[in-house]
């Protein structure tokens, strides 16, 4: 008694008295693997005493096909069947068996790479796991803070040493960074300062007009721009532009071992890479702030002229009356500090990159977010300081 059940092109199954007879046909390649696996899966090997496989009909067999066949043979053997090939088993199957059986030579284990899973303790209770996660996060943040402070300290020391011995500074590199972070940022800084000041003037004009206090629009715009908005806007834009570019540039240099190459030649990467960026930005950011202030006041003037019909002369006079001697300087003094923070965040995160491109992307993001955060935090501290100083 025998019945032929063709399942797919790949396998023909005959059930005989002694068990299964498999006739393998067609292309057994990685391309057909989905269908082959499905066909093999459908073959029921439970309580089959013998499986005989004829592989001569296969027109093309690659390693993946052989791997699927091996999986089936193992399954049949586990189910208690005796598996035999009619003729010699295919070479590829032998190769797969051999590859997966013999333990691979440990000759090329990477040095100094301990198994990271080895030291980890076993799974804990869900409540404990949350605690463990929080604990890990706190410890990691603590380390990160200490490392950041150390980097900040090193940068400051190198910077101070270089300022004392100015012939060690790299003027060409600094000028390049002034150009990259300052000159090329001028259009976008000017545009955003203009738009924001127009919005500010417009909003305040709407509110103050009801009180008949139109003239105070000028005070609001002038003091707002000179003390806070000019420098803050500029810093946020520069943090996005240059903080990310510092982090990406240094990060890819790290990945490319360029930083190691510098260190190996005895050069100090902080002195060569970080200090020019810090100084370049410290020069560029105050200049950008002046431009933002100027354009912001111009925007206010335009709005007052066309919305409030205020003559330009009156606007200029009012600007002069509203500011004190310190107003401009209170704003501009913050710029170098913000520049230092932005350059520091970008360079520090860039220098932290090791290993992979994904880490580079992550750290560039962190650099920008932290640069903006640090700028706003510093601005708040400045506000408190100036209030105490009654300026």
């Amino acid at each position, binding site marked *: 008694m025998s019945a032929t059940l063709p399942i797919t092109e790949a396998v023909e199954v005959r059930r005989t008295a002694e068990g299964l007879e498999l006739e393998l046909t067609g292309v057994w*390649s*990685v*391309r057909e*693997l*989905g269908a082959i*696996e499905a066909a093999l899966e459908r073959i029921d090997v439970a309580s089959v005493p013998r499986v005989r496989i004829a592989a001569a009909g296969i027109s093309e067999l*690659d*390693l*993946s096909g052989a*791997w*699927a066949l091996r*999986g089936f043979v193992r399954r049949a053997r586990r189910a208690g069947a005796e598996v035999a090939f009619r003729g010699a088993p295919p*070479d590829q199957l032998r*190769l*797969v068996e051999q*590859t*997966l059986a013999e*333990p*691979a*030579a*440990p*000759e*090329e*284990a*990477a*040095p100094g*790479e301990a*198994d990271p899973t080895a030291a980890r303790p076993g799974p804990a209770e869900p409540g404990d796991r949350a605690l463990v996660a929080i604990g890990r996060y706190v410890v990691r943040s603590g380390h990160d803070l200490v490392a950041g402070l150390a980097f900040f300290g090193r940068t400051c020391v190198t910077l101070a040493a270089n300022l004392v011995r100015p012939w060690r500074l790299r003027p060409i590199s600094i000028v390049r960074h002034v150009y990259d972070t300052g000159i090329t940022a001028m259009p976008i800084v000017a545009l955003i300062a203009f738009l924001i000041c127009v919005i500010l003037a417009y909003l305040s004009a709407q509110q103050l007009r009801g009180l008949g206090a139109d003239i105070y629009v000028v005070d609001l715009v002038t003091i707002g721009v000179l003390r806070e908005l000019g420098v803050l806007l500029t810093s946020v834009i520069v943090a996005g532009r240059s903080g990310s570019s510092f982090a990406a540039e240094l990060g890819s240099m790290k990945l490319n071992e360029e930083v190691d190459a510098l260190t190996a030649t005895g050069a100090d990467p902080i002195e060569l890479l970080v200090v020019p960026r810090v100084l370049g930005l410290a020069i560029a950011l105050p200049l950008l702030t002046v431009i933002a202030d100027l354009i912001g006041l111009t925007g206010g003037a335009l709005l007052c002229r066309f919305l409030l019909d205020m003559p330009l002369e009156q606007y200029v006079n009012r600007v002069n009356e509203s500011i004190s001697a310190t107003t401009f300087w209170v704003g501009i003094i913050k710029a170098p500090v913000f520049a230092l923070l932005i350059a520091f965040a970008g360079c520090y995160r860039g220098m932290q990159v*090791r*290993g*992979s*491109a*994904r*880490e580079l992307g992550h750290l560039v993001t962190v650099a920008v977010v932290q640069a903006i955060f640090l700028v706003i935090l510093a601005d708040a501290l400045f506000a408190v300081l100036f209030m105490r100083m009654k300026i």
Partner: protein
Amino acid sequence: MAAVVEVRGLVNRFGAQVVHDGLDMEVDADEVFGIVGGSGAGKSVLLRTILGLQRPQAGTVRIRGNDITHLSEAQLRPIKAGYGVAFQSGALYSGLTVLENVQLPMIEHLKLPPTALEGLALLKIRLVGLPADAAAKYPAQLSGGMVKRAAVARALALDPPLLFLDEPTSGLDPVSAAAFDDLVLYLQQHLKLTIVMITHDLDSIFRTCNRVGVIVDRRMESDTLERIVDNPHPWIQAYFHGERARERLGAERGA
């Protein structure tokens, strides 16, 4: 029998700089073909052209009969599934583990269940002689030799009959390089692969290659290994009969 890779009249030019000018190359099935040339002779440009990463100014590149210089990206896809490439520095995706690296071509080209993906990837990883625990590691955690092997495992992901290796033994110590040559021979014999290999390594050439193509004067001189060493071109003479080569050649001929 038709050549597996056939390059005819290839011209590559960058501005005024002519890299290839009427270069011909032919690789037959089941052979290990070595591409040799001085630095800047255009070995990498040739490989990039064959892989379709760069269009030549003139000439044809046929891979198993298909002229790839005039195919669109979509038409190239099945042809690209028919060969594997191991780049010089490995070019492993640094954000993925070795296992995921090997799985990526399969995910791109095939629809397979996750168990099959994992089983096949592990098979390829073991096949190139990596220990099974290397599968979970990231490329940054591997040694140079392991990266090269992992790159070969990824190149073999789709069981291609054709394999390109770009300077596979560069940067390896002689012992690892010899072990890699053994791997190339092992794979060639057991998988019936056709292998095209760019290399500088004389030991590698003498050990693995059946035929060698030397890029000189913007063209290629190719011949069997035994005959190419007697080619009268001065660069080829200098290459195969230089101080470093003489010893090797003597040993080879004496044997």
